[in-house]
């Protein structure tokens, strides 16, 4: 077989190079050439947008977090780490941190398990094509609704005199209904359930795509070796899906930690702060208490926590 020609990689003739970068240019000018600057020129619209829309706002929030009475006073004073101390010793912040941890981890684990379960169901050869298509549409529906619609639907369903309690009291044998979203004992779990319901279809679709990419040869080989269905799942499916599962889990941790609208429109952080999350805590500090300094400190803490997750995500992507 004839080796591939690599003419396109050959260096241009020396004379042509010389014509584009004149050797007579002074040292500093020699480094700055049209060819060298062109990539930056092409990148500059993106860089300007990133600078204006990301770097400046983040820098401003970080600077606010070190000032007292920022925004509300014309001349805020430097407060050092006072805002951070105030936030980190605030029982409401610590409660929000704990609630966020529960909300995020339970949501992510449930998203993974449900997504995997439903994806495997939709990938099974036991169901016909039409049946799979119907279920695929049904399962993906929650993902198509906007947060506002999801909040309204579930507020109505979980209302003390709503559909869920009606079913439980008439068919489920319960004597009294439950105040799902307004009882401190159930509110966090009800909210987490809504978030799980709203988010699992994205996992399902992503995992389904991963499942469809696994070669049937692997399953056949495992079957020939005498592996049971569970062993094939454990030793073929899971290792093959591992990159997808880990990436999705890390992304979900980040996305769920940023959840605000759903919490605000269902419980608002109540009752008795049991559904207060870092996002709602920060919002209240800013737009209710007008404490933009502590709100910024809280936002920076959230940013740092999210960056840890983002770091793992980027590292995983690089490993792949």
């Amino acid at each position, binding site marked *: 077989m004839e080796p591939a020609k690599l003419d396109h990689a050959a260096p241009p003739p020396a*004379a*042509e190079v010389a*014509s*584009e970068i004149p050797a007579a240019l002074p040292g500093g000018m020699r480094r700055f050439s*049209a*060819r060298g*600057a*062109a990539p930056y*020129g*092409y990148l*500059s*619209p993106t*860089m*300007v*947008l990133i600078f*204006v*829309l990301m770097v400046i706002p983040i820098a401003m929030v970080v600077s606010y977090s070190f000032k007292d009475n920022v*925004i*509300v*006073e*014309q001349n805020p004073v430097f407060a050092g780490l006072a805002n951070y101390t105030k936030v980190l010793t605030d029982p409401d912040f610590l409660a929000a941190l704990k609630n966020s941890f529960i909300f995020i981890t339970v949501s992510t684990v449930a998203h993974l398990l449900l997504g995997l379960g439903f994806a495997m169901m939709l990938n099974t050869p036991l169901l016909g094509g039409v049946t799979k298509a119907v279920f695929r549409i049904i399962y993906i529906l929650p993902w198509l609704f906007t947060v506002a619609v999801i909040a309204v639907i579930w*507020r109505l369903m979980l*209302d*003390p*005199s709503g559909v869920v309690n009606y079913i439980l009291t008439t068919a489920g044998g319960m004597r009294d*209904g439950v*105040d799902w*979203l*307004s*009882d*401190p004992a159930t*509110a966090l779990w009800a909210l987490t359930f809504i978030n799980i319901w709203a988010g699992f279809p994205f996992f399902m679709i992503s995992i389904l795509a991963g499942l469809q990419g696994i070669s049937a040869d692997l399953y056949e080989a495992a079957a020939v070796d005498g592996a049971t269905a569970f062993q094939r799942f454990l030793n073929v499916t899971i290792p093959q899906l591992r990159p997808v599962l880990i990436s999705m889990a890390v992304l979900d941790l980040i996305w769920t930690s940023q959840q605000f609208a759903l919490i*605000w*429109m*269902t*419980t*608002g*952080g*109540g*009752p*008795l*702060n049991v559904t207060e999350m870092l996002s*709602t805590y920060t919002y*209240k500090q800013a*737009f*209710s*208490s*007008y404490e*933009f300094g502590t709100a910024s400190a809280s936002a920076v803490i959230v940013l740092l926590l999210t960056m840890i997750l983002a770091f793992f995500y980027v590292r995983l992507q690089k490993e792949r």
Partner: protein
Amino acid sequence: MTGGGTGLHGRLRQLLGVMATAALVGAVAVGCGGSDEGTSADGTVTLEFAQWWAPELPAGSFDKLMSDFTAQNPTIKVKLLSGPYASTKQQLVTGAASRTLPDVVGLDGAWVSDFAKQGAIADLTALMGDAKYDSSQLASQIQIKGKTYMIPVVNFVYPLFVNNDLLTKAGVTKPPSTRTEFLDAAKKVSALGGNVKGWALPLDTAVPNGVQNDVMSWLWASGGSMLTQDGKPDLTSQQVKSTVEYVKSLYDAGVVAPGALTMKEQDKVEKFTTGQVGMVIDSLAHITLIKKNNPKLNFTVVPLPAEDAYTGKRGIPYASWGIGVAASSKHKAEAFKLVQFLMSQQTNAQLSTLANGFPGNKTAEPDFSTSDPLFKTAFEIYKAGYPANEFVGLPKSEDLMRSFDEQLQLVLTGKATVDDALGKSQESWASVLS
């Protein structure tokens, strides 16, 4: 060889083109594309007016008022920035922070103190002086340290809405007038069974105005106050304690609709509309909505019940569509002309009629001829009592409501005593109102 030179120029041209595009994108992104400050070449001034009123009025009616204003003032145009209440608030909070408030702003009394403290809204006393405006015609002005920052344009009162059919069915012959009568009526309505309860208490902490409209209203109806004469919190007073104890007694009696701790105002209205609740304290602005959603609902409005022995005038909670002028506006005189227009006898009466509210101009008379008769009834209640809303003008008023709300929730769920909760609220409020 020539190709090399052409390539260099071509690349330079490309580079310059890309950089020019980047500069343009940057300029647009940072919003520095223009510098007309609302004045056109022919001297016409365009005022920006941010408010949440237009979406709540009949379609196009507020635009028509603005057209009338422009007809009277041909050199001033008005650009309406309309949105729902919550998004308008956020827009104004961020605008106040960045000193980019629109020229004229719709205000809620709860925001005034904070905006004034930030120096974001202008001193209207000075503008009134400059325009030689007769402020005696104004029903009220919201002042901070003696300076007016907001003028209420339209007021919406919160009487007690009573479902006549439910009360009759429960054997209650007349709407309650005292706290004892209210508890009794609420118990009888709740005894009807099903999902029906006597009263709804929205205590959602995301928008904690239930504290103002549904809790403190009981205090104001009996002539009480949550503040001392010099504006300090007075939450441990006997009157406030009696109010909180009364609300708890209603909760403990099982007459409050379930889900109170995260109930929102719209849930309260919905429950009353669907006949799940016999009585609610609600805004007159919702009469049209209630009648539209349930035309068969037989209800009336009555004054808020007071303490049994109370014989004085009853305070009635209210909310306002207030108006202010941005301190950063380059066209304050023109902006105040718009304020004057909206507060004029004719326009104010017209706007109040459209909004089903009560006018901010004392001489304006809303036209009830085509309105629901309940508005006339409410106007009588309003005139017989006095408008009471002590949260108006307080700094961080939403935060004050929220901290009180959280303590009240602890009381209702038995996690704190009334004295402890009020003591903590007093402490919390004192740090803000000191």
